[in-house]
């Protein structure tokens, strides 16, 4: 076995997130700023305090698939919706804020 073959496979997905921006294509994580849980929904303006408390502070914090915002701050400056696994860092789907993304089972 030569030295080259012994070299571990270099898999970018394992060492860095790569995010498919709907406008720019596949880009490295370093171009994005994370912006948190994309499943929380702002309540109506006349909602009670409890509604706003939930919206601002409470999070499911799942161990597994998480739908979240990444701001393409060093690219097109759009918000990208991303389904990413918080245990493996694998990205399953990306889309525009208007898209409904499929969250994988388990």
């Amino acid at each position, binding site marked *: 076995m030569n030295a080259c073959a012994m070299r571990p496979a270099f898999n970018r997905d394992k*060492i*860095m*997130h790569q995010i498919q921006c709907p406008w720019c294509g596949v880009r*490295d*994580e*370093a171009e994005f*700023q*994370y912006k*948190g*849980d994309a499943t929380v929904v702002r309540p109506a303006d006349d909602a009670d*305090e*409890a509604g706003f*408390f939930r919206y*601002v*502070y*409470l*999070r*499911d*914090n799942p*161990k597994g698939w*998480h739908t*979240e915002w990444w701001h393409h701050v060093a690219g097109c400056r759009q918000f990208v919706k991303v389904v*990413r696994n*918080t*245990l*493996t*860092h694998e990205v399953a789907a990306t889309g525009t804020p208007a898209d409904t993304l499929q969250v994988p089972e388990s």
Partner: protein
Amino acid sequence: MVYQAARYTAAEHPASSLAFTFIQAALSMRYSALSILKQGLGGHRGWTRAWRDPTPKPAYDVIIIGGGGHGLATAYYLAKVHGITDVAVIEKGWIGGGNVGRNTTIIRSNYMFPSNTYFYEHSMKLWEGLEQDFNFNAMVSQRGVINLYHSDAQRDAFARRGNAMRLAGVDAELIDADEVRRRVPLLDFDNARFPIEGGLLQPRGGTVRHDAVAWGYARGADSRGVDIIQNCEVTGIEMKNGRAVAVQTTRGRISANKIGSAVAGHTSKIAQMVGLELPLESHVLQAFVSEGIKPHLDTVVTFGAGHFYISQSDKGGLVYGGDLDGYNSYAQRGNLPMMEHVMAGGMAIMPSIGRVRLLRHWGGVMDMTMDGSPFICRTPVDGFYLNGGWCYGGFKATPASGWCFAHTIANEEPHEYNRDFTIERFAEGRMIDEKGVGPNPWIQ
């Protein structure tokens, strides 16, 4: 004579021998220079295990979920201070395998808000007497912590924090660039972007050997009757009439009068078992150790403006880190962009580390709360008590965290020091946001 007998019996007799048991008990009671000498003469074959490996009983007075620093400290103070010894610490892996073994070992109490200041100062005082208290060498080293400042505005902010600390009886000194240079000559004082103008020094800050903290608390708790149950994962919490009454584990059901959670990193997962939703997210924070080098740095230096901090371990490795990777994660590893960022910060402020090789790096999972401050409190669920939300600052808090959590569990009410670390503070508008960045855990 004792060491000879111990050596003979340990080697030749079964453990059931009365003489062996007696000598074992006599030897395991106390670590001292004398015990090391005796054991050294006996070839170090008489040391006994520092804590038992008990089979879980069907019921306990108190169960603490999580055998990390905070859980073990809680059990220790429950037994020692409150006389509650029918306690089990339940750990899914091995004790000290989580964040108490994954931090950068720094202790300090340089906080500005009263809710934090008195709590962390209590922790510092416990650190100062800890080794004598639990009879274990935790290598507490008060080598000082210097926060560098680079502008007049930053100096003013540090002066304000230092004054708040001194008003609370905590040691703090604002030092100028010459004094920083005298203490840490190898920094890049004339950095074009961040020239060093001085620092806020806490002389009593420093480092501790982190694994020894878990081991010392475990040994101290065990010797007072606490059962430390490893490789036992809690898979559910049984409720009866709105009260938490038992835990389901991979080693069976265990009931308890009171159940405390000290699993920071996974607090959301345990809280969900009793139907609690919490204002926190789990994030990954990386840390790094270089190869061992000769003495290079005899204090702790933080370069907040460049997201970098560093100290040197007694073994010689430079121990350093930076900020969170900045996205929700339960993986105990981070990504390369943050590694590169931390290395760049190090090169900017301490260029001499450029030829030192990185030896190891790892990640830990942080409970990031929405204000950067922790929880030590009762909860809306009777019989369920919460310790968590330590963000990236849990290690230094370990003694006071266990001390306050034990107080809260034993007395059904918080101590003055943890009075403000409630879940309800968010709904009540009493956040303890030391950094002032709002409910964005990834930048707390």
